[in-house]
């Protein structure tokens, strides 16, 4: 494991297996999150972003199975830790913020008690007064009056609830924070507030972060590295500069950027990528994006592309040579 990295995911594959079908949710992905940096995982619904996050914290639903790969954190493979040891990591070293603040808080427990719970689990030696002080400090950190710790979730608005959830996740000052679309359920103005707060706290506490989102604007604002995920694969990865300013892109990334509305262009409709993601129970033999790709060649439907690397930028597409340069257009 590279010592600049806090987390390394290698060749991770996850399936959801039921009596009826096997869904290939994640297929051999590699991710490295550098210390004190933020990795943005971008992709549409069903691309396997959340599955990846849940594999890290080992909270896959009972039908989910990791079929290959390693997830290394502090020189240990999280996938092989016994459950009792994994529990000590959760909340203390790796914390997670869930998507929907409306349902992520227990309605019959005061918010202070809920934050205190995580603190107490990981610091059983603290006395009541000290736990109370920490709860208040954590609430103040996310901009909520400490005196509101006795209130119940239904007395908070959506944005405030998400702050409480972030406070819960940061209560033990974890090394890695996994944020699974933390602002999707909030309205736009609150989104910006919460996002800036996350960014602020991340910088202050020196937390590394895995930011899961489908919003490229969020990526541009807070991420250092980006992975574009499609049908359980990372089709393009690199630094924010590589993705936002680089010249060569995976056709899917091009499509994503093309679908962002532009105030200057006179188009009447938004550019969408035609078609749907392939059925994860029956993935194509070749490139997973070939069906929707306007550059698709015969080769694309037959052979799975290998990774092309140029510096920090990685692409998984037949249009590029192994060194990341664009191939001559000989197929036309």
């Amino acid at each position, binding site marked *: 494991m590279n010592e600049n990295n806090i987390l390394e995911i290698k060749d991770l594959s996850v399936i959801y297996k039921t009596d009826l079908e096997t869904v290939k949710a994640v297929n051999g992905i590699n991710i490295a999150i550098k210390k004190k940096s933020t990795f943005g995982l971008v992709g549409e619904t069903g691309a396997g972003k959340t599955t990846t996050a849940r594999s890290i914290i080992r909270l896959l639903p009972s039908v989910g199975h990791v079929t290959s790969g390693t997830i290394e954190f502090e020189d240990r493979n999280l996938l092989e830790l016994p459950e009792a040891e994994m529990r000590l990591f959760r*909340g203390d070293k790796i914390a997670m913020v869930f998507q929907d603040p409306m349902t992520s808080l*227990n309605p*019959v427990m005061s918010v202070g008690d809920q934050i205190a719970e995580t603190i107490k689990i990981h610091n059983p030696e603290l006395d009541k007064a000290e736990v109370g002080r920490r709860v208040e400090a954590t609430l103040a950190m996310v901009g909520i009056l400490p005196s509101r710790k006795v209130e119940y979730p239904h007395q908070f608005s959506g944005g405030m609830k998400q702050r409480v959830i972030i406070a819960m996740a940061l209560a033990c000052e974890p090394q890695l924070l996994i944020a699974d679309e933390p602002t999707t359920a909030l309205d736009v103005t609150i989104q910006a507030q919460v996002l800036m707060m996350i960014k602020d706290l991340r910088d202050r506490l020196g937390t590394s972060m895995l930011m899961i989102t489908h919003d490229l604007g969020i990526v541009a604002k807070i991420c250092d590295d980006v992975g574009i995920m499609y049908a359980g694969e990372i089709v393009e990865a690199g630094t924010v500069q590589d993705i936002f300013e680089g010249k060569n892109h995976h056709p899917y990334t091009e499509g994503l950027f093309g679908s962002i509305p532009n105030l200057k262009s006179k188009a009447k409709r938004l550019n969408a990528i035609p078609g749907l993601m392939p059925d994860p129970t029956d993935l194509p033999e070749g490139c997973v994006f070939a069906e929707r790709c306007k550059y698709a060649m015969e080769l694309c439907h037959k052979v799975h592309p290998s990774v092309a690397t140029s510096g920090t930028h990685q692409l998984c597409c037949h249009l590029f040579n192994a060194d990341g340069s664009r191939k001559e257009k000989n197929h036309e």
Partner: protein
Amino acid sequence: MSQNVTAANPAAMERVKFKKQSQAKEIWRRFRKNRGSMVGLIMLTIIVLALVFANLITSYDAATAQNLRIKLDPPSAEHWFGTDSYGRDLFARVLYGGRTSLSIAVLATLSSCVVGCALGAIAGYFGGKVDNIIMRGLDIFMSVPDILFTMAVVFALGASMVNLLIALTLAYFTNYVRLVRSQILSLSDLEYVEAARAGGAGSARIIMSHIFPNAMGVIIVNTTLNVAKIILYESTLSFLGLGMPPPQPEWGLILSEAREYMRSAPHMLLFPALAIVLTACSVNLIGDGLRDAMDPHLKS
């Protein structure tokens, strides 16, 4: 923007005091609005107070001392409920009988609740084989008629208060297993349970602090309604001679003694029956009110 978010004026923070609006207060506020339930609550309070302070009202001796010269007397100033076939004061018998009846009912309800909840929680949370073993065992229990089952238990162990409790517990815990299991199945998929798990909470903590408190409403309502059922069932058992051994007074027992004198001394039947009906009725009213007050969908 981050300045606004994190650095609010601490002095201003202190000035605003927030009131703790507890769940219990909310429920009481809604419960109070329900007239029927309040009548039930007042009735039950009076009954329970009378039973608890029975020795201040009349002595226990009056309930057991026989005086054949005044047997089967109708109600009078001296004997408010009249006397029974042995000349015992019926008022004292109903009063002290209520102590036995009600305490058995409450204890049996509690023990069946504890046993049932524990089994239901285990079955629901761990699932798989454990769930299968518990639920199939339960199916066997439920396939035997209650009355047959309790009779068998009492016959096998002998009639006493403890054995009666065991019989009633075995007859009633099955409800709770199913109820709690289904609650846990639906609650453990919720995101806040996931979030607690992501915070490092273990199974025991998740069940005790996240799932049970949320299932509590349903359990409390079911328990209240069960008290009424058990009062009636216990009276039935005593009526059949399977309850408390005489001469200790008990509502069902008093009723069964009154059976022979139904025509000549109807008061013997009337008063214990009235006591059973009033108690069961008030408990039911309270249960209904609790159900409405605790149902989040009916919040107004």
